[in-house]
């Protein structure tokens, strides 16, 4: 058995651009905003010399790695580009972490970005390039568990609505979120239906955004800043296609279950609910957040709705989830999201999260699930 990645790599700088419908901001603008904030956070003022490689993630890339090199004016260096659904940012982070752990580089930049709002459509693109598997909309994919989960555990749209309300509240406390507006359960339930049981407020918004972090060797970390954050685990798992898997039970998503098992083993976590202090999880839809509480082992299968009702996962609860408002309020520029979560968790672990700070947070998890869904990425950071 190979060694765990735990404590070999440190995050010494994080940055994010303002997320939103950035009509007046180019992809270059967003990449530069995120990366230069991360440079400054790491105390790097000569990135052309200090950054040895870039690991980028984007689902709608335009010019491959060239647009990253051009934006950051990082030439003559290796740049890799990951593109794999919603865990793209976490996977780019993983390659960066591995490159440091392998001893190939001392310091690298991870940058996730996407600009879906240049496509001229609100929401995801609708494709008609095939006849099978339609409608191939994320809402349609992620709502597939709803009917059976509701029937099995007695949950309903009201339970989902409370999650949207919580995340909207958290988003009002995050300077870089797109949506800063409190909503009510009634707002959620009365919104137009997108894909049953999801109404408009059950769905993450589409937005433009970029986030970045600087990684270095654990033993060099303190030369950048006094309070580095260490990588405890980073895991990707690909599961059976839920629309074909003859054993799929429509009660939970296998990608998360697989990746969590691996990530907890790497980090040495045996009781995630007790040991973790803060969690950013992939709330592309409210039901995804509900199921993910259970799939990550934060509560027992079928009990998530009780925890939603009691506020377990709210700011001030026992285990705050999506402290910055999540995909719900940041939107989901796909390649950026995983790195945006690293950004938030790093701020939380360093006590820099302002009014949304989880007191004394020392272990933080971030989670993406993507595809129909088939793939999950998890990163665990700690002090």
């Amino acid at each position, binding site marked *: 058995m190979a060694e765990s990645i735990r404590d070999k790599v440190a995050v010494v700088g994080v940055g994010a651009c303002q997320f939103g419908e950035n009509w007046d901001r180019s992809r270059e603008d967003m990449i530069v905003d995120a990366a230069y904030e991360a440079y400054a956070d790491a105390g790097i003022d000569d990135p052309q010399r200090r950054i040895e490689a870039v690991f980028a993630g984007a689902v709608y890339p335009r010019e491959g790695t060239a647009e990253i090199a051009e934006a950051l004016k990082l030439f003559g260096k290796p740049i890799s580009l990951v593109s794999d659904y919603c865990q793209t940012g976490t996977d780019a982070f993983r390659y960066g972490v591995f490159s440091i752990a392998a001893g190939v580089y001392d310091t690298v930049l991870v940058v996730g970005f996407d600009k879906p709002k240049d496509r001229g459509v609100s*929401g995801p693109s*609708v494709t*008609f*390039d*095939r*006849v*099978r*598997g*339609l*409608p191939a*909309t994320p*809402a*349609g994919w992620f*709502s*597939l*568990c*709803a*009917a*059976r989960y509701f*029937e099995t555990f007695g949950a309903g749209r009201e339970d989902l609505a409370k999650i949207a309300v919580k995340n909207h509240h958290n988003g009002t406390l995050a300077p870089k979120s797109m949506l800063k507006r409190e909503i009510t359960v009634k707002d959620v339930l009365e919104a*137009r*239906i*997108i*894909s*049953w*049981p999801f109404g408009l407020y059950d769905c993450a918004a589409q937005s433009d955004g970029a986030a970045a972090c600087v990684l270095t060797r654990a033993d060099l970390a303190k030369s950048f800043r006094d309070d580095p954050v260490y990588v405890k685990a980073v895991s990707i798992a690909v599961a*059976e296609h839920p*629309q*074909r*898997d*003859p054993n*799929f039970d*429509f009660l939970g998503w296998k990608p998360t279950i697989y990746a969590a098992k691996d990530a907890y083993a790497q980090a040495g976590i045996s009781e995630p609910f007790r040991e973790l202090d803060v969690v950013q999880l992939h709330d592309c839809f409210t039901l995804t957040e509900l199921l993910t509480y259970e799939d990550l082992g934060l509560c027992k299968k079928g009990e998530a709705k009780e925890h939603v009702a009691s506020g377990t996962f709210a700011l001030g609860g026992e285990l705050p989830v999506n402290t910055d408002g999540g995909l719900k309020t940041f939107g989901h520029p796909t390649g950026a999201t995983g790195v945006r979560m690293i950004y938030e968790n790093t701020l939380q672990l360093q006590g820099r999260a302002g009014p949304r700070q989880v007191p004394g947070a020392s272990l933080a998890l971030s989670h993406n699930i993507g595809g129909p869904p088939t793939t999950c990425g998890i990163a665990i950071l700690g002090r």
Partner: protein
Amino acid sequence: MTGIAAYGAYVPITRLPLSLIAGRPAKEGGPERSVADYDEDAVTMAVTAAIDCLTGVARDSVDAVYFASTSYPLREKQGAALIAKALDLRRDVLTQDHTGSLRAGAAALESALHAVTARALRAVLVVASDCRLGAPRGALEAKFGDGAVALLVTASPIARFEASFSLADELQDVWRIDGERFTHTWEDRFAIQEGYTPNLFAAVLGLLERTGRSAEDFARVALYTPDERSSGGVLKKLGFKDQQVQDPLFGRLGNTGTPFALMLLVHALESARPGDRVLVAGYGDGAHALSFEVTDAIGALAPRRAMSWHLARRRAIPSYDTYLRARGLDAKEWEAGADLGLSATIRFRERDADIAFLGARCTSCGQVHFPKPRVCAKCFAKDGWEPYRLSDRRGRLLAYTFDYFFPAAEPPTIMVMTEVDGCRVQVQMTNTRPADVALEQPVEYVFRKIHDAGGKPNYFWKASPLETSHG
């Protein structure tokens, strides 16, 4: 004995020098294509070819007219009846239009031969004619030609029908949507490599096997071909020699579509001798191959114009504009490249799943999967599959959602996960309303149109509530 008793053909006098399309002056002796004049269309050409064919034949003896064309201008109203009237045939003549595919000409001929062989009809006049349009200055415009052919099928032939072999295929290589003027093709190499070549090869090989003959038994082989080169490879692989191949007349006539293979057959018969065997094959959504043996009666066939006379009679049109005017084209028109719809190559690869609704059963563990994978998700055996048809199976509902976001005529789109014989299949659901959808509901599968991407109906299967009674 059944076969072709008489033949006729028509090629318009007007020719379009291909150099004019390219904006260069015409050169005497340069490549050209036949082009119908402003007052000609598929019907006028068909009538002229039919009259040529009926030289010396009593009009009252014709029992039926089969008219094959993809460019007959009317969608509703028969062409064959109009042609029969123009030919002053009997009132009780059986008339049929054969259309929808470039092999409609060969198909009509095969149908006529079967009808006469079965003694259901005594004399069938098969007429094929096309006046197809490629977009101005597009690749097809220079390849196409206009023309018509007519063959009389009776029990007293000059070319005895030996055998036929036909097969059907489903791929989108050449098409024209209702309301469009211009023919489209998918990428040439796909159309040739996956459509034309394997279908023609299989049809001709099937014919050779059915008759027990080999390539050298034939004096001539008249093959439909979309261009001057593509038939060569097929014929070479089947063992035919260059001198057996009927000249496809590119540079003089062009691909005339539905009548093309039959026009080449007529050209071959014009110089055939008793005892010669001639093979003809047409292509389009499959293929037809037919073989004939020339009889002694050919010597007594009344003289006619047929192909040779029409090919020799020609007049080059003076300018590309003359051609555009004759066809009612606007020089500013060009083939729209924007929305081709579904990829023809993907559609081709997935036709077993999407059209035939075939899953696969693992021969190692018995698990059924849809669509067919390479490696079994249950036992991990590789490439051990037998086809498993799902279209006549019954399933049950495991999950559902109502999608209001997906564009649909009547939202929401009901998307369901079904289980059928242990296999999970995600489909849309029809014949129901959201309020009536329930977990564990039994369903059957129905073939439906999913959308109209590319302006074409695109089909797949949907779930429908299993009807146990009709109350």
